[in-house]
């Protein structure tokens, strides 16, 4: 069995979960705790990858991040190649999982009593309150969001194919490798990779279920 797609997918899903986690928690906080014009628009944009076909999202990301795209040209000048590298796979997985994290964390933040935060704010600065009260109280919801993000990152197919391609040994993640194996009629390889995917996700879910519960 080829091992590269397994390691690549774990790496991509881990990095994209971290990225989507940080971005998603920040966005969720902005969306639940602040009021500003354009808030609904921002929320819609964040959720867009959830409803659009992955190829459409991938297509515009390609235009945006490609060598002649506005951000792509700038990044290339800075010496950072994105498109058709493993970094593109991370970005694809991040974009795909961000709405899941934002939605889950938003729901988690909404369960935190604003009065508890208000009482905390009279005792400590806002940043400390966020770290010591809001995050711990919303922890379970955030964790659920991160699990979804990791699973989504492991399974990302469409956006990745558009943005990172399916270059064996370079950008071919697990789902792409499975597809490739099926296309090449190598069912044994496809089966081995598919079972590995199931194994990884099962272990992850098991570990999560063993984590201590937050006392409420």
């Amino acid at each position: 069995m080829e091992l590269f797609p397994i390691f690549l997918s774990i790496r991509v899903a881990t990095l994209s979960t971290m990225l989507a986690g940080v971005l998603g928690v920040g966005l969720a906080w902005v969306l639940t705790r602040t009021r500003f014009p354009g808030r609904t628009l921002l929320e819609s944009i964040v959720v867009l990858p959830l409803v659009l076909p992955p190829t459409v999202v991938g297509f515009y990301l390609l235009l945006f991040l490609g060598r002649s795209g506005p951000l792509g040209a700038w990044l290339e000048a800075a010496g950072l190649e994105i498109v058709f590298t493993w970094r593109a796979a991370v970005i694809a997985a991040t974009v795909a999982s961000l709405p899941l994290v934002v939605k889950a964390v938003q729901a988690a933040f909404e369960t935190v009593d604003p009065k508890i935060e208000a009482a905390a704010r009279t005792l400590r600065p806002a940043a400390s309150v966020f770290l010591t009260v809001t995050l711990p109280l919303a922890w379970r919801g955030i964790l659920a969001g991160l699990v979804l993000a990791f699973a989504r990152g492991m399974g990302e197919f469409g956006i990745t194919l558009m943005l990172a391609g399916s270059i064996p040994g370079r950008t071919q993640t697990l789902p792409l490798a499975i597809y490739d194996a099926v296309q090449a009629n190598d069912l044994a390889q496809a089966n081995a990779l598919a079972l590995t995917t199931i194994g990884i996700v099962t272990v992850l879910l098991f570990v999560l279920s063993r984590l201590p519960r937050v006392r409420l």
Partner: protein
Amino acid sequence: MLDFAFEYRLEDFLLAPALTTGRDVTALYGPSGAGKSLTLLCLVGLRRPSRGYIRLNGRTLFDATAGIHLPPHLRRTGLVFQEYALFPHLTVASNLAYGLRNSSRAEMQERVQAMLRLLRLDAFGDRYPGELSGGQRQRVALGRGLIIQPELLLLDEPFSALDQMERERLRVEVLELLQGFGGTTILVTHNLQEAYLMARQIAVIDGGRILQAGTRDEVLQHPRTRRVAEHVAVTNIFQGTVADADAGAAAISWHGQRLMVTCPLPPPGTSVEFCIRPEDVRLVWPEKATERPNVLRGHLTAEVERGVDFLLRFRAEGPTAAGGEIEIHCSEHLHYLMKLHPGKQVFIAFALDKLHVLAPPS
């Protein structure tokens, strides 16, 4: 000393309270929707007013013109909510220690232990808030605010979530705790009895404005306007005409009845509203009726037994009947002695100094 006057707009509601209080307990008393809690949120710095200022013991916490808006944790202000708002994921001791970030570990522990003792929760330091009773939780919430040695303590309906017995016990305990607290306390309440019991000063708030502030007796006995009078449960409000404005002989004519008063009056002929608290209306024995001023003869029209006392309604005889019914609070003992019942003829008297003239509505 706390001194503030500010404006905060929330959609169609304009909050514009102004108040000056000293180092004791002031009750911010008013109906729901009056702007009480919003006032606290502005004072503590969680909402930023658009105009005005908030000063505490010479420090400026907020000043719109100078652009000063101190963040909540730098205001030295404790905040206690009705629903306790304890940190459910932290122990009682950690809840208390939350505001003591800048102290050394030893000092922190010492102060937490001292506070636990003061709250009579010595044995509960390692418990979680979910394991405590409502009254115990509210004590922790109070201790969490007091432990930072604030200059201002804000209590937002702190007893409302408790049952009657626990509420009464906690009121006494809180009063004891506040005796050792040298700062200013603002107690938000919609319960007049609680305001009177807990506070030296009462500020009546409604529609986003403080209608009147003063000592509790001043506000209860001398409401400035009809609106304040209604808020502080003065149920007897009547309309009369000034008969004599001379000091010493001041009197109001009320549907043919001449009522002597001690308060200053506008010129004779002026129409005035005057009031008397139902507990200040005296029932007079018939044989003593001629000895007293301001005696009315009439009969009782209704009575409600309220456990500790009776609420009676009285209508005068003759032309004065047109003035309307008068509400009287009467002790069970007196009710028994006088053998009172609806329909019985009785004499009532208004003490001169209890009759109070309201300012005309502006």
